[in-house]
């Protein structure tokens, strides 16, 4: 009897108006809209700021490889090339490495080693990019200019295609070194994502495969990889996005010159690095400042394209 009364009382209070719910709903809706507004205003302000440059140089802005602040002729070609080239190169190097780390951690590593290596990967992801930049400049660049680049240049001398890819004076800085630093920076992201999703594979799947006599590699290839494919692609795209927008570390090691050359050892620049370097000396209202804002807008568009591609790659999974 008493219990029933208590139940009644509690259900009665539940039906009463509770102000917390609509307030929470409104707040969370506002947060969602805030993100849209923020993104929209960012893109808009970059675009509006870039209009004078787009108008002055037209579509040629995208392809022109001239960046001449004295004659006020600006083009985005070198920076777009550098941005895409360093990011793609770093992905070519980072994805197999990250896969190896994740595979080792989930399948091969003895239990006592899993934690230290796992924590080391996560710590690497937390290192600020300026630290990678300084380490790259003071440690990697001298190594590259004294040992790695002269060796590679001599090794491939006379081999078609490769002799053009690895040519030029061994400055140590350049597209290749920038891609190496980016690789070190994105590997932890991709490896950590891959490890986490590899561990979501239900043990019963893997055990059944092992029961059928599969080797570790066959289990990886036929069970784990297909099961986690979409999440792995998501992790890779996360790393790619970071590589595209990385600023400080790249600025230190890319050599910063406005030329495109076939050689991977030649200096170049990226959108993020040229904006960081030129911004302080760009007077308000100048064509240079407008060109830098236009570059920012282009970087936004490139990131958007990458995101869109990763979304389409993820789609089949969403239907299931």
């Amino acid at each position, binding site marked *: 009897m008493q219990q029933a009364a208590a139940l009644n009382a509690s259900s009665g209070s539940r039906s009463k108006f509770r102000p917390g719910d609509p307030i929470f709903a409104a707040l969370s809706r506002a947060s969602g809209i805030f993100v849209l507004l923020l993104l929209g205003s960012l893109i808009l302000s970059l675009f509006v700021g870039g209009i004078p440059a787009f108008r002055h140089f037209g579509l040629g802005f995208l392809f022109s490889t*001239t*960046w*001449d*602040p*004295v*004659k006020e002729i600006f083009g985005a070609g070198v920076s777009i090339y550098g941005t895409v080239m360093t990011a793609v190169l770093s992905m070519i190097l980072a994805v197999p490495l990250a896969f190896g780390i994740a595979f080792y951690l989930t399948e091969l590593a003895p239990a006592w080693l899993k934690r230290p290596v796992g924590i080391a990967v996560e710590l690497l992801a937390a290192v600020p990019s300026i630290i990678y930049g300084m380490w790259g*400049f*003071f440690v990697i*660049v*001298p190594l590259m*200019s004294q040992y790695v680049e002269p060796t590679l240049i001599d090794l491939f001398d006379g081999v078609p295609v490769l002799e053009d890819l690895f040519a030029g*004076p061994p*400055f*140590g*800085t350049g597209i290749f070194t920038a891609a190496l630093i980016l690789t070190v920076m994105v590997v932890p992201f991709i490896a950590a994502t891959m490890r986490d999703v590899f561990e979501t594979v239900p043990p019963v799947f893997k055990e059944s495969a092992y029961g059928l006599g599969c080797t570790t590699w066959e289990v990886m290839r036929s069970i784990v990889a297909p099961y986690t494919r979409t999440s792995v692609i998501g992790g890779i795209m996360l790393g790619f996005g970071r590589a595209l927008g990385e600023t400080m570390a790249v*600025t*230190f090691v890319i*050599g*910063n*010159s*406005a*030329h495109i050359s076939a050689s991977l050892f030649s*200096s170049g*620049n990226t959108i993020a690095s040229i904006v960081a*370097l*030129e911004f*302080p*000396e*760009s*007077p*308000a209202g100048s064509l240079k400042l407008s060109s830098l804002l236009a570059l920012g807008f282009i970087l936004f568009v490139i990131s958007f394209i990458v995101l869109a591609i990763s979304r389409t790659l993820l789609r089949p999974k969403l239907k299931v």
Partner: protein
Amino acid sequence: MKFALAAVAIGLAGFTVAAQAQSITGAGSTFAAPIYGKWGEAAATAVGIQLNYQAVGSGAGINQINNRTVDFGASDMPVKAEALAEHKLMQFPTVIGGVDVIINLPGIKANELKLTGPLLADIYLGKITKWNDKAIAEVNPGLKLPSTAIATVHRADGSGTTFVFTDYLSMQSAEWKEKVGASTSVSWPNGAGAKGSDGVAATVRQIPGGIGYNESAYAEQNHLTTTMMRNADGKFVAPTMEAFAASAANADWSKVQNFAIDLNDQKGAESWPIESATFVLLPTDPKDEKQSAAVKKFFDWGFTHGNDIAAKLLYIPLPAKVQDAVRTAWKAVPGGM
């Protein structure tokens, strides 16, 4: 980067000293930041003016004074007369700094190698590519030059130092003037770009055969291998304080408007050919005359009592008659001293 750190440290130290002193704000030149920082520290106790200086770069400093968000702007590149008139600004120099050429040639010590302006331009244009080129050997009789390839290094970030250097090259080579020109950042024909003075110094040190340029104060403090340069009188001089001062003294300041003098390639047997003054911009229609008066008082103190501090930081003080001319010019700005 060292300059910026020093400026921050000095700024923090100064902050604790005089809390109720009159405070002025300035922004711009990173090149002048160390001296303004030191002057600010000393002036806070001496005349009770607290300077809050942001080393954001000359371009950003000009933007800020155009928008009147600071009491004065600071630029390494003199502002054109039309721009001064448009934004109602007056301009005056504060201190002078030299630019050194630095090299990395194993076996060659500081100030052993002699270079000329046209040679330097040809090197940066990529026309001279080996250190044992005939043209370099001609001015360096008796010096054993290696056959190492020349690797030119330049500032990748926009910088007043680059302006001084490229302005000098434009004077020395018609081809440079036409193809590249002079600005805080230019379209370099070849070589590697490095970020900041420390970046240029480190890159040159890392590449045998490297050549670069740096503010003399930075080159001196870090014991970089400098070169001698041929000046307008045809004499080879080493980058010393005396040579910088000689160049500033030999310049004819009376002929230029708004003190927008080019100190590159001045006459005189002792003169160092690559150097420049750094400038301050002050509104002629100040929002608050008291603030402008304090700015003038601050730099007046710097001119009168700050020369030793400047010399210690390896800046060259303005010649006395130029300082007096600046004081006269200040009359154009409302607010007494």
